[in-house]
């Protein structure tokens, strides 16, 4: 009995510390956001009211719905949510269209080249994203690299207006998140058992048929991981729309930022956060289940 207890204790000690950190600095803060989203604005420190009050021997709980009601009644917020989801969705689709062939061809390249190509996908991760997004400002501006190139080639006669439009934000988002899509998909494709393809060919499948009925289904976990790694953060992206988008490029990250820093309205910012996370709940669950499945099947091996 005591050895079992000792084993249990050593298991807890070996498993718990990262868990404690994450509960303290990830779960707990999020519960606080939920709490403050039901508070009201107040002058002072902290700038929100307390939900519970002890007065006249009665404990009262007050839930202020101001933030949530404002979100529903103001069409700006509603259209911002819809727009963020749409932009993240289109970004994800484009990443799949560009990233799938890239991941596929890297995974099927000869081993020597494969490592170089993989490194070339990872390398941008190690250089500052902020600076790389900033590079697009210089490329897309009306007096920028792209326009001067196209005008010198005679393709266009007057500069294209891309900088400070939604198109620029799409370019920036796809650019920033493409490696996040390629890497998990590559990891899935490279581990695929190629004998399955051989079997399909032996049974007379054409290459396309073999791809559609063998490779594509087997690569789905990678596609899902990658798509979620693009979609979920893109919904809340702040830096890219702020740097490349116009004043009318509505995205949640920008609204949250301005409620927090410009308006200093923490309860509203919290309510916006809670609604955004709940909109992302389904993708988040898909991602987590997919992730748990990957870890579990690997752990059992």
């Amino acid at each position, binding site marked *: 009995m005591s050895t079992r207890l000792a084993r249990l204790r*050593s*298991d807890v000690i*070996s*498993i718990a*510390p*990262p868990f404690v*950190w994450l509960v303290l*600095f*990830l*779960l*707990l*803060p999020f519960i*606080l*956001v939920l709490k403050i989203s039901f508070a009201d604005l107040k002058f002072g420190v902290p700038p929100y009211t307390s939900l519970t009050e002890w007065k006249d021997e009665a404990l009262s709980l007050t839930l202020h719905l101001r933030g949530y009601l404002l979100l529903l009644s103001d069409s700006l917020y509603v259209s911002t949510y819809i727009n963020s989801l749409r932009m993240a969705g289109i970004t994800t689709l484009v990443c799949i269209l560009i990233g799938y*062939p890239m991941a*596929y*061809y890297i995974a*099927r*390249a000869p081993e020597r080249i494969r490592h170089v190509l993989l490194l*070339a996908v990872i*390398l*941008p*991760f*190690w*250089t*500052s994203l*902020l*600076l*790389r997004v*900033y*590079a697009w*400002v*210089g*490329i897309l*501006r009306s*007096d*920028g690299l792209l326009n001067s190139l196209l005008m010198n080639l005679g393709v266009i006669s007057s500069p294209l207006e891309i900088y400070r439009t939604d198109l620029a934000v799409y370019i920036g988002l796809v*650019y920033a998140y493409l490696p996040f899509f390629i890497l998990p998909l590559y990891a899935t494709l490279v581990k695929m058992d190629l004998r399955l393809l051989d079997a399909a*060919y*032996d049974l007379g499948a054409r290459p396309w048929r073999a791809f559609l009925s063998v490779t594509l289904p087997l690569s789905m976990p990678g596609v899902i991981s990658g798509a*979620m790694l693009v979609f*979920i*953060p893109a919904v*809340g*992206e*702040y*830096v890219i729309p702020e740097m490349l988008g116009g004043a009318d490029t509505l995205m949640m*990250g920008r609204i949250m930022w301005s409620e*927090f*820093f410009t308006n200093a309205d*923490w309860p509203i*910012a919290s309510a916006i956060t809670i609604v955004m*996370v709940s909109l992302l709940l389904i993708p988040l669950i898909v991602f*987590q289940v997919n*992730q*748990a499945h990957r*870890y579990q099947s*690997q*752990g*059992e091996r």
Partner: protein
Amino acid sequence: MARRLAPNAPSRLGQWLALGLGFLFLYVPILSLIVFSFNDSAMMTTWSGFSLRWYKSLFQDAALLNAAGLSLQVALMTATAASVIGVWAGYVLARKGKFRGFSLYVGLVSAPLVIPEVVLGISLLLLFVELDSLFGWPGQRGMFTIWVGHTTFCMAFVTVIVQSRIRDLDRSLEEAALDLGATPAKVFFKITLPLIAPAIVSGWLLAFTLSLDDVVIASFLSGPGSTLLSPEIFSRVRLGLKPEVNALATLFVGAVAIVVLIASAVQRRQRRFQS
């Protein structure tokens, strides 16, 4: 023969097209930053001659240098802490198998990979404000609070890298050591840790750059006098072009290139040594 080749030799044209255009897209912006950092003109359209003037003005910018110093400190501390916790979590995920609460564990460990940074920033800020009003700690926000935020955010990436490396390890080495009577802790430090060292190094480097790069979390969690490099750059470039930033980016890319070259040289030597 032709049939055996088929799955491994996909269409050449498709391969060149997809990879060529894809990498062009990924690398043209970086190249443009490098080229125009040496341009005498502030414009990115005209090349008016080679010049190092932007490097010169970069190194005379006291505010930027100060911010860079603080950022390096935070990034060093973040990368180290994120590596320790991330390796720990990655080991648990890869080796401890199923235990009660495994799903919650996976959930918490992978959440920072996808959770928008704005959400992380806001929620941690509220935590620190609440803690401060309850216990008078951690007081003024600054380097410490940014470090906590960055570590939480970066450890998830280290975990992913490390757990996939541990999973690929040959388990029999660890089992042999256990059979010979080594304690689990000793097995981890003597066998597992040296074998996953390359993964830890790349995780550390990734955490280092993610911390250096982050604008959002650092903006929420910084206090007076603790402006880091990326928020500083961001506040300058959001309004337009700043040629000094091209010079900074080039130095950044140069540093990364040197580290990668050294790392691959070391790896090649190790591989030769092993074979």
